[in-house]
């Protein structure tokens, strides 16, 4: 019987004895300690390790960040439990909650706790976190050394419960500390119905994160909530014998209160480490492996000091936990923690605040950009060093936080116009942080693609921007949303993006960037698109979506020696008209400089009547558009018009708008109309990476909108002309950059020709000048075109002249001889066209 009893108890102890797993003891069950346990278990660490967690607090693990909402009554205690007691039990992790660790015998490798237990360890992890700092004040503690009743820190669930209890029975609170925690406590207590005064020792609120101006913006918002704020105010004495009745400030004022919340900062819990002989400065010193100076003793979270930094945020603590779990389980024996770039976004007293890195410039050469609108409660600033974002502060408006966080974390390139870091001048969509963007919001308006669909494509395995664009067509319309699509893809992929090899190629079907492609085409003397595929594409395979870009490029390179192939050409270029939604076409005859004649107008009117043209429309480019023409009617329409094509369909030079200039306008400074006609005559029909729109105006009143054209020319008087490039007023709005001011119209024509040829040779397929000019760089552009810094000008002049010489009017050409049989046959035989409404 005894034997049986003995036998009954034996196996359990034997089990322990034969448990050959190494023992990990975690000291501290806060956000860092608990996360570490999770990370170890996730790496199957339960196989090799027995885990014991000793926690001072008598609870399971809870989300400390959520204490403020609990205090404000916005969340329940139950909501913030991360891991319950059961969670630990189910996973075979021994949780000893409510057990304070006294010291570690690092020689015998045993953890001694206040309850008298001694727990042997193979590895011990200190995750003791930090505690509220109670500044020395007369009367803050009772004779026994405890805090005076009514005085609480703001760190634990127990303290939160005390405050909630006080809010029910008392009415006046003073919160000490105008940092994050103090502001949260003040707002929460105010929400609980207490009258709250905030006492802050420094000159402005949140001085650790914000500069004085931003702190002032926060102060306004806090005061608007009805909270009284005292800055530069030190509490020196706490009044009351059985319970707090008030605080005395250094300047002698007394503030009455029946609750005093001390949120004057935290201090790392280091006493266990100190008593155990582990090296401590401000916190427990650790290396990149989270190891202390004592073997097998590690420290993570707020109690750790790494490379001089003690972190007070959860993200670094969790990174610590991950690295240490990688190392101890052997999941990644080379894992190393090299520091965190902390970015934090939160709501402080009802105000959105996001801060990352430094708040003010530190070096002479640091760039510092500030937008301050105290009335609106908005303060935005960025600090840039060596073209990288090293700090940002957003108060009251955190729409740009996604972009800034990315720039900060990944050191991504910054816009040259720094103001765009804080506000988006051209594109309202980009202001929205992608994380906050609702899933059903339409990102690509051209193709009707929502954020959810983009994220879905990423979830389905698309790992690059081009792959997502192919799968969803997002960004494949006007392209103005491409930046936003890219950010969403990056966000959805959470950094797991592959750089598509083809990203640098001119077209997807030929694996070469544009300069190399041009060189190869010239070297192999390739004059047709099919020859390019046969020679340069992988496996000689043709690619439908590359044909149009290649056709344009070959025409640019070879001029009249280009060998046309109808199948290489997009339908618009095959029939020299712009295809409409119902399969009909729009016809825009050339009207140089927007100048027409009664005879032309009569012919256009006759054609419109003869062919029942559903709509005759004056275009934005100062021409007349005949819309809804059937494909088979196109040659007849051209013949009846007897006018050349206006190229309103191609990736080519389109139109030159002009004002009436000095001939008629009483403000006109020069003959803008004639210069516009000359420009259009010289560059008509020129193929290019994307469409080119120009304008010439006779004075800076800019009536023909020259400032927002690919090429804009502005008369400034005395024969001088300003030449602007890279402007746009389409899907993007951008004012052109002033390239040069010249003294003659022939200089204008020469400079514009050089610019166009440079763009044609270097612009990516479908890259408008408003993207090309900033990418190429205005300074370099000026150097190349004005000073011939790269010795290109002669070749540019020659190249553009070759294309100008190759110009023929496509309407006249194909009227004389169709380029292929059935060129103008209907493609929708049973559909009665036009289907568009007739006006």
């Amino acid at each position: 019987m005894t034997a049986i009893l003995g036998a009954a108890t034996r196996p359990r102890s034997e089990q322990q004895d034969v448990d050959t797993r190494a023992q990990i003891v975690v000291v501290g069950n806060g956000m860092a300690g608990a996360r570490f346990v999770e990370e170890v278990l996730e790496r199957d660490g339960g196989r090799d390790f027995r885990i014991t967690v000793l926690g001072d607090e008598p609870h399971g693990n809870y989300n400390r960040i959520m204490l403020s909402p609990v205090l404000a009554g916005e969340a329940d205690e139950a909501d913030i439990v991360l891991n319950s007691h059961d969670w630990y039990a189910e996973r075979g992790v021994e949780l000893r909650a409510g057990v304070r660790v006294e010291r570690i015998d690092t020689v015998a490798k045993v953890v001694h706790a206040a309850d008298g237990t001694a727990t042997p360890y193979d590895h011990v992890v200190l995750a003791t976190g930090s505690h509220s700092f109670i500044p020395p004040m007369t009367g803050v503690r009772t004779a026994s050394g405890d805090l005076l009743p009514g005085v609480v820190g703001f760190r634990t669930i127990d303290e939160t419960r005390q405050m909630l209890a006080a809010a029910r029975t008392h009415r006046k609170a003073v919160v000490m500390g105008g940092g994050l925690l103090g502001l949260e406590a003040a707002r929460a207590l105010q929400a609980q119905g207490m009258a709250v005064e905030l006492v802050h020792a420094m000159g402005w609120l949140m001085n650790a994160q914000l500069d004085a101006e931003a702190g002032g913006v926060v102060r306004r918002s806090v005061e608007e909530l009805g909270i009284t704020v005292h800055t530069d105010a030190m509490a020196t004495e706490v009044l009351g014998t059985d319970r707090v009745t008030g605080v005395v400030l250094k300047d002698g004022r007394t503030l009455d209160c029946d609750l005093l919340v001390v949120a004057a900062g935290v201090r790392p819990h280091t006493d266990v480490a100190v008593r155990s002989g582990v090296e401590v400065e401000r916190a427990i010193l650790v290396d990149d492996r989270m190891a202390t100076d004592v073997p097998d003793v590690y420290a993570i979270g707020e109690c750790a000091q790494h490379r001089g930094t003690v972190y007070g945020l959860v993200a670094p603590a969790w990174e610590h936990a991950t690295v240490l779990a990688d190392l101890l389980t052997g999941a990644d024996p080379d894992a190393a923690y090299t520091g965190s770039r902390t970015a934090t976004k939160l709501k402080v007293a009802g105000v959105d605040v996001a801060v990352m890195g430094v708040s003010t410039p530190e070096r002479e050469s640091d760039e510092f950009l500030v937008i301050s609108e105290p009335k609106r409660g908005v303060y935005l600033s960025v600090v840039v060093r060596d073209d990288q974002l090293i700090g940002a502060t957003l108060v009251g408006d955190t729409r740009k936080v996604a972009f800034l966080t990315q720039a900060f974390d990944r050191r991504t390139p910054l816009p040259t116009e720094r103001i765009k870091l804080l506000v988006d001048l051209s594109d309202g969509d980009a202001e929205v942080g992608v994380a906050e963007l609702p899933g059903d919001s339409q990102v690509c308006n051209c193709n009707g693609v929502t954020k959810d669909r983009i994220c879905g494509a990423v979830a389905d395995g698309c790992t690059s921007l081009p792959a997502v664009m192919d799968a969803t067509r997002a960004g494949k319309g006007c392209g103005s949303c491409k930046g936003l699509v890219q950010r969403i893809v990056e966000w959805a992929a959470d950094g797991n993006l592959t750089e598509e090899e083809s990203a640098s190629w001119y077209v997807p079907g030929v694996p070469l960037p544009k300069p190399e492609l041009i060189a190869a085409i010239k070297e192999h003397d390739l004059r047709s698109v099919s020859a390019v595929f046969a020679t340069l594409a992988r496996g000689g395979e043709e690619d439908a979506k590359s044909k149009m870009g290649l056709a344009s490029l070959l025409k640019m390179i070879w001029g009249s020696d280009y060998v046309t192939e109808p199948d290489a050409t997009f339908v618009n270029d095959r029939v020299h008209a712009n295809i409409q939604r119902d399969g009909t076409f729009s016809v825009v005859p050339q009207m140089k400089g927007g100048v027409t004649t009664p005879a032309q107008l009569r012919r256009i009117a006759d054609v419109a009547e003869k062919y029942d043209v559903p709509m005759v429309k004056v275009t934005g480019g100062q021409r007349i558009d005949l819309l809804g023409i059937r494909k088979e009617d196109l040659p007849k329409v051209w013949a009846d018009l007897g006018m050349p094509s206006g190229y309103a369909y191609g990736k080519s030079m389109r139109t030159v708008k002009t004002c009436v200039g000095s001939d008629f306008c009483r403000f006109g400074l020069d003959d803008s109309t004639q210069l516009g006609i000359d420009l259009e005559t010289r560059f008509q029909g020129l193929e290019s990476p994307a469409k080119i729109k120009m304008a010439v105006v006779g004075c800076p009143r800019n009536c023909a909108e020259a400032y927002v054209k690919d090429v804009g020319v502005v008369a400034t008087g005395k024969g001088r002309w300003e030449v602007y490039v890279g402007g746009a007023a389409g899907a993007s709005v951008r004012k052109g950059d002033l390239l040069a001011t010249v003294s003659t119209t022939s200089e204008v024509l020469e400079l514009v020709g050089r610019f166009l040829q440079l763009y044609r040779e270097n612009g990516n397929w479908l890259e408008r000048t408003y993207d090309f000019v900033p990418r190429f760089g205005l300074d370099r552009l000026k150097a190349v075109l004005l000073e011939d810094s790269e010795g290109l000008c002669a070749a540019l002049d020659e190249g553009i002249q070759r294309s100008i010489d190759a110009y023929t009017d496509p309407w006249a050409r194909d009227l004389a001889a169709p380029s292929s049989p059935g060129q103008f046959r209907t493609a929708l035989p049973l559909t009665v066209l036009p289907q568009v409404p007739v006006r």
Partner: protein
Amino acid sequence: MTSSLQAHVVGRADEVPVGEGRAFTAGGTPVAVFRLRDGSLRAVAAVCPHAGGPLADGQSDAKVVVCPLHLNAWRWDGTPTTGAGPLPVYAVREEDGALVVEL
């Protein structure tokens, strides 16, 4: 299945130039016929299932046809590569200079 298919002479084979597409009518159904660069023929519905675009005006290669309106693309088996609906495809052959489509 096959018994319900009917062969229609829709036009002459030389009406479709190499690399291009032309539209025909086969028994009341508009059909776009393409001649690929290798000389072979393909036939698909003439009307784009996305927004009614004229597919015979689209560009193509050995693998796909691309609609000219919104640049949706389909493989020659009718499966989309850009998330549009499937595209009906038909058997097409050349017989004594005539273009024969089965549907």
